């Protein structure tokens, strides 16, 4: 029973902020080979783009806090959103 990530994320209640609460210095990403942020984030917020930079889907963010340490090169600036996620069940 494989459930697509976006479907899983769509189960949660979001109040998405107008401005992204995540800023990435994508110039630094150009020199980053393994792109560890894409492995660490459980919401697939960071997606590699073919030009070597990173696309940020900030509206997916589960606010786990991993973004605060996910980038070893200090390219991610993360603050918690004003709205963001609300869990209903657990």
């Amino acid at each position: 029973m494989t459930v697509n990530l976006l479907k899983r994320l769509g189960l949660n209640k979001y109040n998405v902020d107008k401005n992204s609460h995540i800023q990435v210095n994508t110039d630094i990403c150009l020199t980053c080979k393994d792109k560890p942020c894409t492995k660490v984030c459980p919401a697939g917020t960071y997606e590699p783009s073919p030009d070597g930079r990173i696309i940020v889907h900030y509206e997916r963010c589960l606010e786990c806090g991993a973004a605060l340490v996910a980038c070893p090169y200090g390219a991610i600036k993360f603050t918690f959103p004003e709205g963001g996620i609300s869990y209903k069940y657990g």
Partner: protein
Amino acid sequence: MSFDADVIIVGGGLAGLSTAITANREGLSTIVLERGEYSGSKNVSGGRMYTHALLQLFPDALERAPLERPVTKETYEVFCDEGKKITFSFEHKTKNSYTILRAKFDQWLAKEAENEGVLISYSTLVTNARREKDYIVVETNRGELKAPLIVDAGGVTSPVSRFLGIKKLEPKTLMLGVKEILDVKPNLPEDEGEARTIMGLIGNLKGGGFVYTNKDTLSVGVTIKVESLYNSNLPSHEIVERFREALGIEGNILEYSAHLIPYYGYDKLSNLYDRNLIVVGDAAGFLINDGFNIRGMDLAIGSGIVAGKALKKIKEMNDYSKTDIYYEMLKESFVLRDLKTALRSFKVLNEEEIFTKYPKILCNTLSKLFTVTSDGKERPINVLITESKNENVNTTKMLSDIMRLFI
């Protein structure tokens, strides 16, 4: 100087609410700032709570709190390659621990706090904090507030301590927890529940998984060291899915959540207090993971109770630099005592082999011991030595590591 309250508590999770309830009962004016639209709306836990600390706060909690099921069966499972698995199960009809769901539980606790007179400001995000001469100002999306005593109860990311520049987060002291809730009703009587701890199903990642039975649902999740995700072949958003599938659990997913988990260990705890500041729960790094239990919730409540009492003493002294009183009181409580006791096993769990090689060696050894062929039987210790050698592991070290988990 006039202040907004005696104490401002940043974070309305278990630690913050327990601090607030205790401080309020001690006669202090208390404000809780919570960024979620209700307490529990942003909180993630596997969901097994040891109830002893909660009972200190509310002696009748077992009757009143929204608990799911008492854990009456513990199952430990180690999976190895080729379908081999070691299982250990233990049943006991006690009410020592319960499964809970935080969205329900924290909301209940917040209501209790409000009924006792605690002021909670929801949807209030603390965006910065700065120290003035003898008090702290917290900046929020709704304006500034100041108090001579601030409690950082903001969870693992320790917002206040970070904003004040006394804490920096490092991947090596953090784990990532990812969890699903499934609409699978456990096939158990209502007053029974099971906690499964599972090793060996998440490849080479350092960590393990769990399955907890709630009243009508299952909590299924993994906890993994952040560092080990850097070189993983599997992105972290696929791990729970693979884990659930490997266990053969089928059902509709109701919720998908994730959260960092502190992983400091007793000897690496820092920033527990500072001038005008007290740090509780995950923000202080109070988490025990000894391979058998993961405990943060009882430590969050326990440290909150100690903090509430310490705040009263500090206020009475009228010297807000004397926050070390909290630390002295913590040393006398189960929080630091249990963290200290867990240190040995905690260190063992930092060893790479625990997750990668030991399960395989033990499985292969047991597999040979339970297999009879016409080649004749070897002594168990010789089988163990051979299997350890195959994995380049020193048998004595392995046995001593395993012993350290228990003694």
